[in-house]
């Protein structure tokens, strides 16, 4: 029960952090970090997978509602939520029996880093491809993906470092 409340609070915290603060940063004119995808990284593996996919879809859709982007965030967030399991298999070499006790904090930093960087870049690439919505300006999609990914990752690892050290 307590864990469910924690999950809901984490969901709402990331949503409002994203739409009220991070969407208005506009670093160098147009770069906003998309930190809300941290929900996908941290959501426990042992939970029902249908519910996990659905809640990630809803998180993306709520961000879409606030930023008027149709369903782009919902699409890209759902995409990495689905891919998450295969990357856990590849990077951490876990079997389905290990999922019950899987925790990002107890894994070596190098593996966690690879896992998060891969998912972030995939998410941002899909997001900017759809936001651009044409095959012109492909260089802009790639440069936006690169810069925004760097910004998101720096922010994610900084916040992660601060919170894990204090607790």
């Amino acid at each position, binding site marked *: 029960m307590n864990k469910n409340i924690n999950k809901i609070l984490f969901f709402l915290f990331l949503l409002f952090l994203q739409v009220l603060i991070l969407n208005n940063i506009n670093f160098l004119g147009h770069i906003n970090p998309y930190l809300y995808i941290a929900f996908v990284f941290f959501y426990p593996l042992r939970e029902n997978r249908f519910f996990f996919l659905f809640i990630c879809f809803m998180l993306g859709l709520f961000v879409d*509602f606030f930023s*008027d982007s149709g369903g782009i965030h919902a699409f890209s967030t759902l995409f990495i939520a*689905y891919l998450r399991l295969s990357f856990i298999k590849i990077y951490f070499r876990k079997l389905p029996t290990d999922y019950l006790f899987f925790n990002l904090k107890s894994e070596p930093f190098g593996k966690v880093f690879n896992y998060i960087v891969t998912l972030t870049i995939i998410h941002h690439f899909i997001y900017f491809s759809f936001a651009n919505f044409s095959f012109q300006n492909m260089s802009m999609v790639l440069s936006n993906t690169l810069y925004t990914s760097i910004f998101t990752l720096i922010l994610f690892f900084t916040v992660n470092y601060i919170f894990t050290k204090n607790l």
Partner: protein
Amino acid sequence: MQQIIYFFQKFKYFLFFLLLELIAVSFIFNNLNFHKSKFVNSANIVTGGLYRTLSDYTEYLHLRSNNNILSDENTRLKNILEKAISKSSMIDFIIVDSTKYMQKYIYTEAKIINNNYSKPFNFLTLNKGKRQKINKEMAVINSKGIIGITEQTSNNYARVQSILSKNSNINARIKGNTFYGTLKWDGVDYNRVQLHDIERQAPIKIGDTIETGGKSTIFPEGIPIGTVLKLSSGNTADNKIDVKLFNDMSNLRYVYVVKNIDKEEILSLENMDNE
């Protein structure tokens, strides 16, 4: 039958994933179509209400600059009024002031409660909607120039398609003559839009003012847009001109929504030859 059940069992997550992705794609396509009604937009009661609360708090930070803009506009309008009065007193016959009952546009004041300018398709949210008689496809301007077109309204909020959108197509011309073109945006710089398909023989110089032409039923004639920044190089098919906007699209607050009273009449007349 067993095979089908087995198939569903094996791929249940993937099928669920596919279903949700299809829903998301349909939202994306729906969002890009100007004439369709939309489900995912910021002009609903939850997002609109939250943005309004937020803008009520941050409003005080911009009071000084807003006052400056307002007094500038007042000065300009006072000068125009003074000119009109002096002109009419010089002419010594009775003037039937037709402007009072031949009014063509109604202006409504509104506040921007959410502004985007960094994406290829940008939208703004206004704090007024159907209850304040704001409908689809009305012009949104401020004292400096054009901002966009209303595109979706709820009871108390409206969503505006910014001119900074790859979908935006606005009739524009060079001030002082009647050569007109179409104003579009390429999605790169939020201070710069592009004027397409203007006549090749049109006399254009860098620094010329671009304003709205009277060819659309949405925008009034002669609303300023920006100045010519760069002429097209070479002989390309669409004579493309870079225009620097008068408005700083990243810093907007109070706007006017313009309703064209004669719009239905004009449109019904134009569509008559289809029969």
